């Protein structure tokens, strides 16, 4: 039910160290080497050779994954920190070292301030909009009843679709001459028709609506998973004691669902800080800032790669990463502490 950390260091004993008498009911007398084809006949092989073999096995099995991972994840991230100190157009080695100038520029750029503010709105409002709604839906869908699995799957569909598909569909639907305004007109609510995408007062709310639509299914599924972990005996006992349905949800379900809620909030916050696809697809790189929906990531792409200023783009990436990291660490320190005793990065480790 709750999120437990699963430290790799604990738990199991490797076959190397298990002797036949070591508490496991093994019928074979004496120690059996994993490599020995005929147990019991040979004396145990010399350790150094076996260790050598094990080292080779480990290298062969982990090597490819480690190389790909270091080359395409760790190395680029490290290089971002390095490139961020240069004024660099991306060709040849960076030579124009400018120290912290890129970072000063970023922190003084009002366009970045706006993007940061939009990210903050998205972080908070995603939690406020999706959390309660998803929780209510999960509570509703948690009762065993016919059709439950169908509803659950259909709610999840938008989450599976590509951001591009979703973004294209919504941007066509929300144009000022689009289907939503047409529909409002038709049912006599023409007064509510808006310029959903271009009006800077409304665009960020449109974006929040689309985000909620796209990602609420994920929250519902997570919460349902958490709800299943709550033993039914508890609610039954509370019922016998005369607790009402809402009392049970309030006093038993919600507290026990805490770990799931906190993990979801964490994933939601990090996702909100990194938001790129939907904004970039619906608003494009230039419209996003005038419509008031730019995010740090769209700022990074527009002012980095698209402008050809790779040094600057990398500096923005570093800032984005540091902000995410600080938020993650603070959240880990003050909110997740109760749930996970381990490293932050083990948050999804069951």
């Amino acid at each position, binding site marked *: 039910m709750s999120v437990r950390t699963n430290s790799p260091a604990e738990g199991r004993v490797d076959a190397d160290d298990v002797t036949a008498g070591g508490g*496991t*009911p*093994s019928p074979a007398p004496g120690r059996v080497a994993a490599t020995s084809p005929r147990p019991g006949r040979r004396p145990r092989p010399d350790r150094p050779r076996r260790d050598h073999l094990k080292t080779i096995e480990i290298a062969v099995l982990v090597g490819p994954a480690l190389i790909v991972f270091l080359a395409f994840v760790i190395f680029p991230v490290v290089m971002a920190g390095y490139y961020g100190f240069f004024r660099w157009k991306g060709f040849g080695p960076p030579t124009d070292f400018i120290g912290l100038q890129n970072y000063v520029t970023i922190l003084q750029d009002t366009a970045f301030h706006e993007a940061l503010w939009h990210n903050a709105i998205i972080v908070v409002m995603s939690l406020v909009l999706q959390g309660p709604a998803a929780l209510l839906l999960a509570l509703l869908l948690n009762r*065993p009843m*016919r059709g*439950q699995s169908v509803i659950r799957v259909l709610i999840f569909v938008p989450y599976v679709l*590509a951001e591009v598909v979703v973004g294209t569909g919504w941007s066509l639907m929300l144009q000022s001459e689009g289907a939503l305004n047409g529909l409002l007109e038709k049912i006599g609510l023409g007064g509510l028709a808006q310029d959903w995408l271009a009006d800077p007062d409304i665009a960020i709310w449109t974006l929040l609506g689309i985000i909620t*639509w796209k990602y609420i299914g994920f929250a519902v599924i997570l919460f*349902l998973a958490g709800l*299943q972990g709550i033993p039914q005996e508890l609610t039954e006992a509370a019922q016998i004691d005369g607790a009402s349905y809402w009392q049970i949800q309030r006093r038993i379900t919600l507290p026990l669902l805490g770990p799931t809620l906190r993990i979801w909030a964490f994933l939601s916050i990090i996702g909100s800080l990194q938001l790129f696809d939907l904004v970039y697809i619906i608003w494009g790189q230039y419209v996003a800032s005038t419509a008031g929906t730019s995010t740090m990531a769209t700022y990074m792409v527009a002012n980095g790669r698209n402008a050809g200023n790779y040094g600057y783009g990398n500096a923005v990436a570093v800032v984005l990463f540091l902000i995410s990291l600080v938020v993650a660490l603070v959240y880990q320190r003050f909110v997740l502490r109760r749930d996970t005793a381990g490293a932050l990065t083990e948050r999804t480790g069951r």
Partner: protein
Amino acid sequence: MTASIALPRARRPRGSGTLPWGSPAIYFVGFVVVALMLAPIAYIIIGGFRTNSQITADPSALPAPWVFANYAEVLVSTTFWGEVLNSTVAAVVTTVGVVALGLMASYVLARYRFKSRGLLYAVFAAGLMFPMTVAITPLYLVVRNLGLTNSLAGVILPQIAFALPTTIIILVPFLRAIPDEIEEAASIDGCSRLGFFWRMVLPLALPGVITVGILAFIASWNSYILPLFILNNEATYTLPLGVQAFASQYSVDTAKVLAFTSLSMIPALVFFSIFERRIVGGLTGAVKG
């Protein structure tokens, strides 16, 4: 502790047989929510059956009459099928790569004992801290220096790398949950540790492997920012880039854009409906202790 403990499971009702009906209010709420979720998707699909003049005249009406020309035109275009092929190749190779590399590494992390194991696990787990968005600019430079821009390999390799942390974190508990007794029994029967990997670990870890594979496939199929940076040649476009290019190229031809968009989401929808239980169950398993 058996392997089945770690298997993510979709919610199954207690007992078998038919379930009771819920109250009408619940169905009403459920209906409204599902309608809200599906309406935009329905708009995309149905809009593809209309003409532009129909859409201009009344953007929110049903097709009258139903027109199949938009879909037909997209279906005979080589661009569309080329992009389907590119997306398929990228997704399949990514999935195979993630599963192969992830399984090998997870096996070592779960079942070998050596000094730097904790460190190794921490290195992979740290990858969760670096979403692709953050690393995309330097990642593009790495790929460019390798000469892999405008090739699917330039998309596939980073996708494998960025999928590894999740894969390893999901798979390690699966592999660790395989009882030592089985490994001992196998070794008594003369099975080497690598033989054990092929004959016992793979079949036992299959549910986890499938979950991981599906997640990698869908992530690759929907991937946008990485192809956006790496692929600049239309011949190498994957479907998400294709949809966007098509939408800006035919921005006046709304009906055709809708047809193209809805055709491009069919593979994801089909894939999802086949593996729905596994996907939902996999996510469920990720948070369940």
